[in-house]
């Protein structure tokens, strides 16, 4: 009995703790873009509060219950493709073992609405890349290992690695939506090569990678530019950010 009470108390303490530390404060900093368009400067990022973990199925379920227009049944093609939340059992039912797993199979619109609902927003590419600490050699090792792995089963958010900013699972768990994913114009729309720059883009310039060895970053940019706003993916989730006063 005592043990039970003890356990309950422990759980209580744990939950309170988890709640108060669910966001991480990031102070102002500078992000140097990896791929630059002509005249593209360094970007100031911060200060803001970023979700420590990616949004889980449990959290997203709560959002869908409160906003049933975002349930599977009420899905609109233009906002989310047919794969939207396809791993859920039904509109409002999720496998218990998936509750703490990052939500995936969500579109950009859905992710954005979720953040908006909680008075937050999606991170920009610059913000995401900055807080993901991707240019840290230690992180790079994990990233390359993850990108090269074939095991695609999603893990619980608590299994994610904590990076130098204190954020969990920026690499190794899922890919994440960013607000300006469609500005990641790499080669995706330069299909017709030399013609594309002049014909498809205004004010365009050569895209130059600062350090060609960082191919992991290139993969993220390429992946983002392949997405559409209603795309969903088995390994594509998100987290939110809130600007600090």
């Amino acid at each position, binding site marked *: 009995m005592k043990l039970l009470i003890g356990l309950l108390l422990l759980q209580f303490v744990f939950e309170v703790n988890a709640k108060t530390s669910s966001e991480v404060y990031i102070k102002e900093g500078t992000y140097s873009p990896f791929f630059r368009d002509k*005249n593209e400067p360094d970007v100031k990022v911060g200060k803001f509060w970023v979700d420590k973990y990616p949004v889980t199925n449990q959290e997203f379920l709560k959002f869908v219950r409160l906003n049933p227009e975002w349930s599977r049944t009420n899905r*609109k093609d233009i906002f989310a493709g047919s794969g939207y939340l396809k791993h859920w059992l039904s509109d409002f039912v999720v496998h218990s073992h998936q509750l703490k797993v990052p939500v995936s199979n969500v579109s950009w619109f859905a992710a954005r609405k979720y953040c908006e609902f909680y008075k937050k927003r999606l991170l920009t590419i610059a913000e995401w890349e900055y807080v993901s600490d991707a240019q840290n050699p230690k992180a790079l090792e994990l990233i390359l290992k993850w990108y090269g792995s074939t095991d695609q089963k999603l893990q619980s958010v608590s299994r994610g690695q904590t990076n130098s900013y204190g954020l969990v699972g920026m690499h190794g768990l899922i890919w994440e939506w960013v607000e300006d994913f469609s500005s990641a114009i790499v080669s995706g729309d330069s299909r017709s090569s030399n013609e594309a720059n002049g014909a498809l*883009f205004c004010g365009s310039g050569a895209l130059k990678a600062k350090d060609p060895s960082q191919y992991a970053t290139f993969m993220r940019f390429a992946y983002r*530019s392949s997405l559409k706003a209603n795309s969903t993916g088995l390994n594509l989730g998100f987290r939110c950010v809130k600007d600090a006063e």
Partner: protein
Amino acid sequence: MKTKIIFNILIALLLWNGFAASIANSCEKHNLAVASSQALPGDSVYQLHSSWTDQANATVKFDSLAGKPRIIAMVYTKCKSACPLLVHDIKKTIAKLPKEVSEKIHIDLFSFDSDEENSVSLNEFKSKYELSDNWSIYYGNKSSVSELAAVLGVQYKKLDGGEYVHSNVVYFLNESGEIKGKQEGLGRDNNEFVRNIESSFKKGN
């Protein structure tokens, strides 16, 4: 009494649109609006409810553009290279269409520039490129711009100095906001685009 008449008219309109009577009867006014937006096809861009301001400084809800076939594109008025060409391309497309088709189409341009656009810059653009009354041009906030671009699949990025890199695409939307034609790039052959617009009209839009 008056409200009741209006209410009845609304119901009649809905029925006319092919709505089930049972739904209409059980709905209150508020729900009617929701119901009618659900009547749009799932891939209609008019499911966006963003707010825009036009050259006459009037607020325009994006979904209020439903009900008329439109050619739409995203530009910004400071753009010196691609956007004027894009406008030229739209004019060429319009000129190629039979008059009974072209006179029914409205052209709507949406600006990428949520920071510096205003009704003055929109009007200057309109008169500079001699855009007639069936052309409108709008600006909106950052979120409206990014949602519209996302729905259309237009890529863009702001550069230092206020210029934008962006894809150049012109879309034809039918009355219910489905994309029925698309012209990518500048100065290209527009035969297919013109054909798509015409065939959409033949099918009763």
